[in-house]
């Protein structure tokens, strides 16, 4: 088959109607541009919003929950194994919240190749004493370096430096909400009371702002050592081990495995934050629907223009068929026209889409909730460009398919006799 001839005829037909061809191509360009820009921006925003929570949430969290014993003594007794045991008024055990044998667990986790990193943590509820009132809060004793590496702790410090927690003894970083309530400035010393009633002075070295107000109103950070001192515990005392995995999707499986292995409670990220995944999914879905709708509208534009071209070129089609072009040749000519419009419109659209994304990426966007963000977030995922390219070709192909089929079925006898 003579492709060169088909292309040259297609080209001539397009050139003869270059204004309409241009409008059709601009339609495709516009929709691809919007598709790329919309998806890049939307998923960028998604990433930002998800990051608010997911970045700071461990994939697997190992801890000991306060809860009633699973195995009540009477059930364990051999004597009553065969009977139904009714136990009333079961209460939670006053078990320790610390993780048993934490050093060995940390060692084992370090050697597990599914694990990217671990961050040990002590969570302790406290009271901050400010004048006559006591404000409740939660102190997180953290390992600053691993917390920064794994959970971007650094990004959320708005005043002071994270590493000061380690360098300054008995120091604390306050949540912005807590600091506002306490009127505490960096350098001030705070009196902190534990749930056991011990009081200890801590020096404020910075503020922390996560963007979640409720979170910032209670959460404060100290180093692990300070937290251990505060609680009067030995230096192997840990209440939480946060684990980050190489593959987030493995979290439920790994959590279950660790739960059984360490005889501790475990929580995976999917269980902890299932609503965020739903939110992202819906937002992405909306972006795709809008993008694809734009493309389909552009497709109708191409359909119209090709249909018109075929009515105008009825004579040309008839004579081509009379002089030896088969229906499939004619069909191919119009498909080539449609695909060229899709291809060139699409390629330009991809570039403009990238350009628009860059523009959006440079629009200032400052919000008190997100200290590290200065411009709108944009996700430059090559997958969007790929989908955009494929989709522009597919829609234009289908937009060209029906007109082309109509053209291929033109009966030259009817046209030629009609004159």
């Amino acid at each position, binding site marked *: 088959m*003579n492709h060169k001839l088909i292309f040259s005829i297609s080209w*001539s037909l397009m050139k003869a109607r270059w204004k309409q061809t241009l409008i059709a191509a601009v339609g495709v360009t516009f929709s691809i541009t919007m598709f790329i820009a919309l998806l890049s921006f939307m998923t960028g925003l998604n990433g930002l919003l998800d990051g608010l929570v997911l970045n700071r949430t461990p994939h697997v969290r190992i801890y000991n929950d306060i809860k009633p014993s699973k195995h009540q003594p009477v059930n364990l007794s051999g004597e009553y194994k065969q009977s139904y045991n009714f136990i009333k008024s079961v209460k939670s055990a006053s078990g320790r919240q610390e993780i048993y044998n934490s050093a060995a667990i940390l060692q084992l986790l370090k050697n597990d190749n599914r694990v990217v990193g671990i961050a040990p943590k002590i969570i302790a509820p406290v009271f901050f004493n400010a004048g006559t009132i006591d404000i409740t809060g939660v102190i997180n004793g953290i390992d600053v370096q691993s917390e920064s590496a794994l959970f971007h702790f650094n990004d959320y410090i708005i005043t002071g430096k994270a590493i000061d927690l380690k360098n300054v003894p008995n120091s604390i970083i306050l949540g912005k909400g807590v600091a506002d309530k306490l009127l505490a400035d960096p350098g001030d010393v705070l009196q902190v009371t534990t749930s056991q009633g011990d009081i200890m002075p801590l020096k404020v070295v910075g503020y922390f702002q996560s963007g979640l107000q409720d979170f910032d109103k209670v959460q404060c950070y100290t180093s692990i050592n300070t937290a251990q001192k505060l609680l009067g515990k030995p230096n192997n005392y840990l209440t939480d081990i946060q684990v980050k995995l190489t593959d987030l999707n493995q979290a439920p499986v790994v959590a279950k495995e660790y739960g059984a292995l360490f005889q501790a409670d475990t929580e995976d990220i999917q269980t902890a934050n299932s609503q965020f995944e739903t939110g992202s999914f819906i937002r992405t879905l909306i972006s795709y629907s809008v993008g694809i709708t734009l493309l389909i509208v552009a497709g109708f534009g191409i359909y119209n223009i090709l249909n018109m071209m075929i009515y105008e070129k009825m004579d*040309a089609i008839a004579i081509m068929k009379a002089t030896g072009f*088969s229906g499939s040749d004619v069909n191919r000519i119009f498909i080539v026209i449609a695909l060229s419009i899709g291809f060139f419109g699409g390629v330009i659209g991809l570039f403009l889409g990238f350009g628009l994304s860059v523009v959006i990426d440079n629009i200032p966007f400052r919000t008190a909730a997100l200290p590290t963000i200065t411009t709108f977030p944009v996700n430059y995922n090559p997958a969007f460009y790929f989908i955009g390219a494929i989709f522009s070709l597919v829609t234009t192909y289908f937009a060209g398919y029906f007109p082309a089929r109509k053209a291929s079925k033109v009966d030259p006898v009817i046209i030629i006799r009609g004159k």
Partner: protein
Amino acid sequence: MSEVILQASHISKSFHDPVTIPVLNDLSLSINKGEFVSVVGKSGCGKSTLLYILSTMDTDYEGQLWIDQQLVTNQKEKQLARIRNEKIGFVFQFHYLLNEFSVLRNVMLPGLKLNKYGEQEIEHRAMERLKMLHIDDLALKSANQLSGGQKQRVAIARALINDPAIIMGDEPTGNLDKKNGQIVFDIFKELSLKYQQTLLIVTHDPEFAENTNRIIEMEDGRIIRQ
């Protein structure tokens, strides 16, 4: 002169919409190489219908048709397109040139489609034919800049590009004034005498018909004289 170029046997055709009307009735004819044949008859006698069946464009008929010893009846659409491309040259009442292309390109198109020669060679052959018809100076003009008579001559050059076995014409002079009609007729006559080109021309013009080798006269779907 005995080589048969076109043979039709027992061709019948009816229109079925809205009621069945027979148009062609058990019609047989054969045309030898080099013959200049004209088909005449009153309007509605079926001569154009016959031409379109003979030209393979209309496939809805009964009977059998051979072109250049090759059975055409019941061939696939693609095969028929190839036969038209290679064996048949068309000249219609209206010129049907493509305005998007130059005159030269219009003449070349069926040759490019046949793809028997390279593009250079086809261009050369197209120029030869334009020269033969004394319109080679128009080669690079666009088709819509030409006069009616010139257009029809370009259409004849296009019909000749693939050295067809037969040239078919549907009232090729119908749209032309007397002078241009005469020019077109002279071209046909020259093709017939000088190049032994086979021609089958449907016409209304009795003068045109009288000057051909053979007249086929039709009436009510039958050949009454040939």
